[in-house]
């Protein structure tokens, strides 16, 4: 089992918004929904690698800023009729802190 990394306080991510997360090798997007659920995806749309962290969050999906593909935050799958998938990462919230498993 990979370890959980403490990334940020929940309040540091805007509600219905996202933060960019940079690791040494990866660019991720960390999303927060209206209901304070947190999801992490690779920061690249399956279509043309648009930065999903810059998109608009609604319900539990995000709309890519480049060509309006909608990506499901939980599965990383593009919503129909588009097809494709972004890599997902596990998250959890504990005591107001957001943890990420990479």
């Amino acid at each position, binding site marked *: 089992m990979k370890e959980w990394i403490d990334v940020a306080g929940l309040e540091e991510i805007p509600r219905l918004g996202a933060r960019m997360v940079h690791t040494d090798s990866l660019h991720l997007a960390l999303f927060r929904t209206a209901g304070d659920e947190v999801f992490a995806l690779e920061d690249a749309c399956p279509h043309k690698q648009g*930065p999903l962290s810059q998109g608009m969050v609604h319900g539990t999906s995000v709309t890519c800023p480049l060509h309006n593909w909608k990506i499901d935050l939980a599965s990383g799958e593009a919503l129909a009729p588009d097809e494709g998938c972004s890599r997902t990462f596990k998250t959890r919230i504990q005591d107001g802190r957001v943890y990420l498993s990479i």
Partner: protein
Amino acid sequence: MKEKLVLIGNGMAGVRTLEELLKLDNGAYRITVIGAEPHPNYNRIMLSPVLAGEKAVDDIVLNTREWYAQNGIELKTGDAVTAIDRVRRTLTLASGASVDYDRLLIATGSTPFIIPVPGHDKQGVLGFRDIADVEQMLAAAGQYRKAVVIGGGLLGLEAANGLMKKGMEVTVVHLLDRLLERQLDGPASALLKASLEERGLTFLMEAQTAEITGGERVEGVRFADGSEIEADLVVMAVGIRPNMALAQQAGIYCERGILVSDTMQTYDPRVYAVGECVQHRGTCYGLVAPLFEQAKVAANHLASFGIARYEGSVTSTKLKVTGIDLFSAGEFIEAEGDETLVLQDPAAGIYKKLVLRDNRIKGAVMYGDTMDGTWYFTLLREGTDISAFRSTILFGQHDLGDAGHGDARASTMALPDGAEICGCNGVCKGEIVDAITKKGLFTLEEVRAHTKASSSCGSCTGLVEAILAGTVGEGYDKVPSKKGMCGCTEHSHDEVISAIRHGGLKTMQAVRETLEWSTPDGCASCRPALNYYLLAHWPGEYRDDAQSRFINERAHGNIQKDGTYSVVPRMFGGLCTADELRAIADVSDKYRVPEMKVTGGQRIDLFGIRKEDLPAVWRDLAAAGFVSGHAYGKALRTVKTCAGKTWCRFGTQNSTALGVKLEQLTWGSWMPHKFKLAVSGCPRNCAEATIKDFGVVCVDSGYELHVGGNGGIKVRVTDLLCKVQTEEEVLEYCGAFTQKYREEAHYLERTAPWVERVGLNHIKKSIVDDAAQRQALYERFKHSQQFAQVDPWGQRAGGEEAHEFTPLKVAG
């Protein structure tokens, strides 16, 4: 236990209702479909091409048996319902089986009317309604020679054309003196008749059928005047009757059809009805577009959403006889006081007529060239004031300056598969046709969703619609009568704006709750629109929601394809100093800006800035006095100017100074879409003011004000609003026009389409004719500007919204 929904009638309207229902609420019901025909749901509209041999039966199946299975729908074909017991809520079938229901959807369609003359029940006398009829006609065509079609309406002519193509000698018998009297006026009807006669059809006009003669099988038709013609096959296509016998027998109230309310419910609230069998507000529909609108409403109520209403449809028709183009819509026979515009070219076989009332299209008839039918139909349904382009409207939409597509439109279906239709998304004709046939698409929206064609700039919409119409026939959904803002609501932009303004709604939450949004926090399409409407109507009160802004407006720069941003500092009126240029050069060096460019709006664009560097870049620019140029926003962009009378030997006024004043007045304001100004110092118009949203052309005696221009995808030259004498007036008129646009236009609607939609007169009334209204608009604009003229770059350079620009760094 889930409720059980039973659909009687496995046809287009009923199954479409199920499709709409599954989209809204998959799994709300256990569904059973009972169809009398032995086939799955097929496209009845395409029976004519099947008869003509242009398509096979398999080509026109809309829902395969697998579709029913995949969606958990029980399908019983070849079995008819014989009785409805509404007390026990059971149906009795011809096979003897019985089926229970909790809710019932009746979509029994219609039956062809067979004239009850002596001999009407002989062998070889048919209606034209289903696959069985077509199969019988095809069999007859292989065996016999002479066919008589009774009825010169759409269906009759299509049947006649099909039988002729199968090698039969066909005579069309019509009671009246003109064909398609419900769709065409006299001249168009005459052109059609001549063209069909040339192809080999024979017509007997004003002939009243008295008897079908023969033995067991038909041998001829005798008319009221005693004359007689030979016939081996008689097709009766004189009309359809709503098929309501079953409902009537169950005691459901019927008149000419099964009576339904605006929610598609019959007098028994458990029983819904859609399609050709219903009568709604006194009208029975026989075309597919209204049926699909009904299906949407019925599904909405079956899914317990309860917000949609069907309010009737305006319909249009086309004849599906290959090679004959005709189109009609609305009230195409003028009433007293109406005006008509007519274009007639008998040699080329072209006839177009528009019926106008108060400069709005009420009806249209076209023969020979119908490419603009969809455009006229849209103008008709939206009630657009056409006075601005009335003199050229008959020449078609491409004559308005839809550059590049003009001639291609006339022959869309003749284009090769590889022809590019959508230049923005690189979609070829073949891909579109493929998606339509393989995925069973019916609407422009569906084609956009699946292929992306026409989903960006929209200039190819006409072409895509032509392909859609050519591929699925009349079945495709044209402009819906009322268009919701997005998938989250049935309410139109105008309804939402009105609710915000008059209902005192001041938060997005309040709008979504009051107007019953179907999603908790909207979508990427409605959130920016609502955010704008609230900001425009409640300045100083509504708090801008960053998460409802597109990334460009949230990050205050233009996102580029590689994820970097571009930065355009504001240079009022395009003027600059050596110090300012030096500051820009320093920023370029310091942040290693890979490319700089002078923009079309006379500003300098710095490309390739990393998002993390944006606040620092802005800090350096602010130190030199620059504020945001808003080159990224649905906002006031730039005021372009020419040299003016200070330097230019032709200049009549000080255009640069006026440009600076206008930009100082308007900068920072948010708009429905981008908004550009220009001031030219003389009629030579070097600042290109006549393709701007608001343009000023200086003349010796004052200032000409021009509005509604656009230099983008579709070039539109401005309309002259009026002429004024002083700079103060220019500012007041500009502020008032801007505010009117801000208050009334739909989000993402530029001034050009807005002016075309509402009409220049509507704008002149409150800006030019009514000084009190103009001043009130101007005051509201200035009030709103108090809150809008805050430099977003300065704020962010000072540390606001830092989370937007700073990535979280973690090891790993």
